[in-house]
């Protein structure tokens, strides 16, 4: 049976909701805080900042990290910057404007109350990060520098060269390590979460596996925080790092946590194209390149294999400028991505694979000179040259869209608590504040907002009402969860012993191809139905045996890790297709071919789909049940986007 979800957002005007929440929340007596233990899984921006903040507040924190050190988390790869409504540029920015841009950019599929809070705390994040020693870019005056980003009309993006994510993560990581020194955080690296333990309806712990020794352990706490990132690697090829996976969130989902909007995926238009079958990873090139580069493909498919410099102006189709005269090459990410796909589908794609479009700087170099372009984009041009062995000062870059962020994730209320009491979900792992499309430079903002400035309050409110029961790590729930985790490892080993036609890597790549072709930039009913049956068949193949060798000690093994990820991703992929099938409208990054305007733009259906889709697991993805949280827009009235 389907239920309607309650966001538990405070009532009253949006400007005062968060203040009211803080005024009304319950507090834990300072002397009692150290009696509460909180588990934090993940050490990216959200997890590291949450660990540091909760430990500083006085709680005992146990933090778990899948990498060899917390500083490797994928937040580190964010290049561009972090938004904050500081209005340092005196250009009319405000909390309200950041809120408005985020709701509109998310194509009216986010929760207004959460987004407003995000915009409110954005300014504190900058103060916090500067106090933590983050070396943001500065002006000659010694004040912080800002730039514009992602098509907004104000300059509100703070940055540290092209390594903003790295510097913000190191700031949070260092604060957390200080708490390790203070013995307030107990940190376990090279450890993965295998299961969530729910006792009397509350999240009370996790089962973990040591990735060096293979040892499985039980860990208990009064609350569990998941900050385990997104699931873009379900597409196999993405800009996400190898350890970015859905496993922790998926295990929580299988224990009852609802998965919100799984089909909302962001596809970034400017990534270096795939060069061959062995490609393992895609590299993103900053969106800023579209400020000066012109996107084109040959007018005729017959010219697609010709050298770009041999093609006369008249034989080139600057398709974005042609179709969107007012925004041109600066149309939003989803529009740019989809159009690249269309021209490649027409056979006009370039490069050896035919899956690329040109991003040409010839005119910009002519207009501004080599030096200006070098100053603006030198590091990106260098990176491109290193990877492709082509010099973008001489020949146009080749670009193709790639998956790089997932807006969907575990469903949370205003407290960032899932439907399982005591299970909190932060950062990209939750279904988030970004609706159906995330604006550039907003991921870092959300991760740190959740970890530094939301969870310390909402966790206190939860723990103040927490009554400890008789549960221990010897409780049957813990023993059962450990046994089921052990059973999974044994199952994986058995699959390897059985053997099969393919390696897990090959099955994983097949899954990625299905997802990219049918659950990618453009989706339609027939394709999604096909995807579901193909994924089911692939899962069957996987579950009947694979080519895999696992070391006898079951310790450090890439093969075993990949197999466990693939098993989870095969289920998630099916749920994403199912969610995309159910959401018959187009919105943001979710484009249903059946729902477009006459101009080929995404057409929302507010009457039927102004809701969050939250899926409940019922033993198999094919049986998952859909719950809804309806979305109302009191402040930002939904309109149809147009970039003509």
């Amino acid at each position: 049976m389907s239920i309607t979800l309650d966001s538990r957002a405070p009532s009253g005007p949006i400007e005062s909701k968060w203040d009211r929440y803080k005024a009304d929340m319950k507090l834990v007596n300072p002397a009692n805080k150290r009696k509460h233990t909180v588990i934090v899984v993940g050490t990216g921006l959200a997890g590291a900042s949450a660990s540091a903040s909760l430990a500083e507040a006085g709680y005992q924190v146990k933090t778990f990290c899948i990498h060899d050190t917390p500083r490797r988390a994928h937040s580190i790869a964010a290049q561009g910057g972090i938004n904050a409504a500081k209005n340092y540029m005196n250009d009319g920015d405000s909390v309200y404007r950041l809120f408005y841009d985020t709701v509109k950019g998310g194509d009216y599929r986010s929760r207004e109350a959460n987004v407003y809070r995000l915009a409110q705390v954005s300014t504190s994040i900058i103060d916090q990060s500067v106090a933590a020693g983050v070396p943001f870019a500065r002006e000659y005056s010694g004040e912080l520098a800002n730039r514009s980003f992602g098509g907004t009309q104000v300059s509100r993006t703070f940055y540290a060269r092209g390594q903003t994510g790295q510097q913000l993560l190191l700031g949070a990581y260092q604060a957390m390590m200080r708490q390790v020194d203070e013995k307030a955080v107990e940190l376990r690296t090279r450890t993965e979460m295998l299961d969530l333990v729910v006792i009397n309806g509350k999240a009370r712990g996790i089962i973990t596996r040591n990735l060096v020794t293979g040892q499985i352990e039980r860990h208990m706490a009064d609350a569990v925080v998941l900050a385990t990132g997104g699931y873009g690697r379900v597409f196999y090829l993405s800009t996400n790092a190898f350890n970015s996976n859905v496993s922790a969130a998926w295990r929580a989902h299988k224990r009852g946590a609802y998965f919100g909007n799984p089909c909302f995926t962001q596809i970034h238009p400017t990534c270096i194209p795939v060069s061959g079958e062995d490609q393992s990873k895609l590299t993103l090139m900053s969106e800023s390149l579209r400020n000066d580069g012109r996107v084109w493909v040959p007018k005729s498919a017959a010219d697609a294999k010709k050298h770009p410099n041999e093609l006369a102006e008249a034989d080139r189709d600057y398709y974005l400028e042609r179709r969107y005269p007012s925004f041109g090459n600066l149309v939003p990410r989803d529009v740019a991505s989809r159009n690249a796909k269309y021209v490649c589908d027409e056979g006009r794609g370039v490069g050896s694979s035919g899956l690329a479009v040109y991003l040409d700087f010839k005119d910009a170099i002519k207009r501004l000179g080599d030096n200006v372009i070098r100053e603006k984009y030198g590091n990106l041009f260098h990176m491109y040259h290193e990877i492709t062995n082509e010099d973008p000062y001489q020949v146009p870059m080749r670009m193709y869209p790639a998956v790089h962020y997932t807006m969907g994730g575990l469903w949370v209320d205003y407290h960032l608590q899932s439907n399982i009491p005591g299970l909190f979900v932060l950062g990209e792992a939750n279904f988030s504040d970004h609706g159906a499309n995330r604006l550039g430079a907003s991921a870092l903002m959300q991760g740190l907002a959740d970890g530094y400035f939301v969870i310390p309050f909402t966790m206190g409110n939860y723990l103040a009402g927490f009554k400890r029961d008789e549960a221990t790590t010897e409780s049957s729930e813990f023993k059962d969860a450990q046994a089921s985790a052990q059973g999974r490892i044994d199952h994986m080993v058995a699959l390897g012993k059985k053997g099969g036609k393919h390696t897990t890597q090959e099955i994983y790549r097949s899954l990625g191809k299905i997802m990219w072709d049918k659950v990618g930039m453009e989706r339609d009913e027939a394709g999604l139905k096909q995807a579901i049956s193909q994924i089911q068949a692939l899962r069957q193949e996987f579950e009947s045996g694979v080519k895999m060798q696992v070391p006898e000690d079951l310790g450090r093994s890439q093969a075993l890790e990949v197999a466990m990820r693939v098993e989870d991703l095969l289920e998630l992929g099916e749920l994403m297709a199912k969610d995309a099938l159910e959401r018959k409208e187009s919105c943001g990054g979710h484009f249903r071919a059946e729902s477009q305007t006459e101009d080929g733009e995404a057409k929302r259906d507010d009457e039927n789909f102004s809701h969050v889709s939250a899926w409940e697991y019922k033993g198999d993805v094919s049986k998952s049940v859909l719950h809804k949280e309806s979305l109302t827009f009191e402040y930002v009235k939904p309109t149809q986007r147009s970039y003509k």
Partner: protein
Amino acid sequence: MSAKKMTVHLKVWRQKNKNDAGHFEDYTVQDISDDMSFLEMLDRLNVNLQKAGKLEVEFESDCREGICGTCSCVINGQPHGPVTGAATCQLYMRQFKDGDTIVIEPWRAKAFPVIRDLVVDRSGLDRIITVGGYTGAKTGPHADANSILVPKENAEKAMDYAACIGCGACVAACPNGSASLFTSAKISHMSLLPQGHPLRQSRVTRMVNQMDKEGFGHCTNIGECQSACPKEIKIDSIAIMRREFFNAAIRS
């Protein structure tokens, strides 16, 4: 644009765990295109090994775009291989020729015990940060970010040092196995910013002492570290660290 295909011969360090003596094993990988990355070549080797019913070569990587600091191979004697200013994951097979023999080893240092094959334990670096690599500011309200001005030049220099990705190539390159470049990069970053000043003395003293405790060697100004550093961090940071250390010692 057109990819050339080649065959490479590998000598790869295999070691079951830290107590195992370890040895080189020879492999040949065929049909490698020159626009594959070095790690994709190792991926291919592992697929071949799985298909042949053998155990994969364990190695580490994560972001594969040169920022997370996870990948860590010594390639033909050089940490991160022959290209300067690049991590292992940023190395492409076009750097090699058809028929080349490539020797692949883990980071080798007393303070980095081998976990398996090419995977080593670098947690000593974390413990150095743990004792002082921070400003000490707690989460909460702070003065407006623009209330303390930082000269652009200092912010830029701080960023040069803060760019460290914590990969440990400096330790692997150093004949003494010293972590001085890593440690001094953090100390230099913090000493250049006003926010780093309150803990200045305890920071340098504790971090340098921790470096010794972890079994890292001493710096004798050889300079291999800065050649191996994928972020091209300069050893002038080590001079800053020494100055900070002596200042702290005099004032304590």
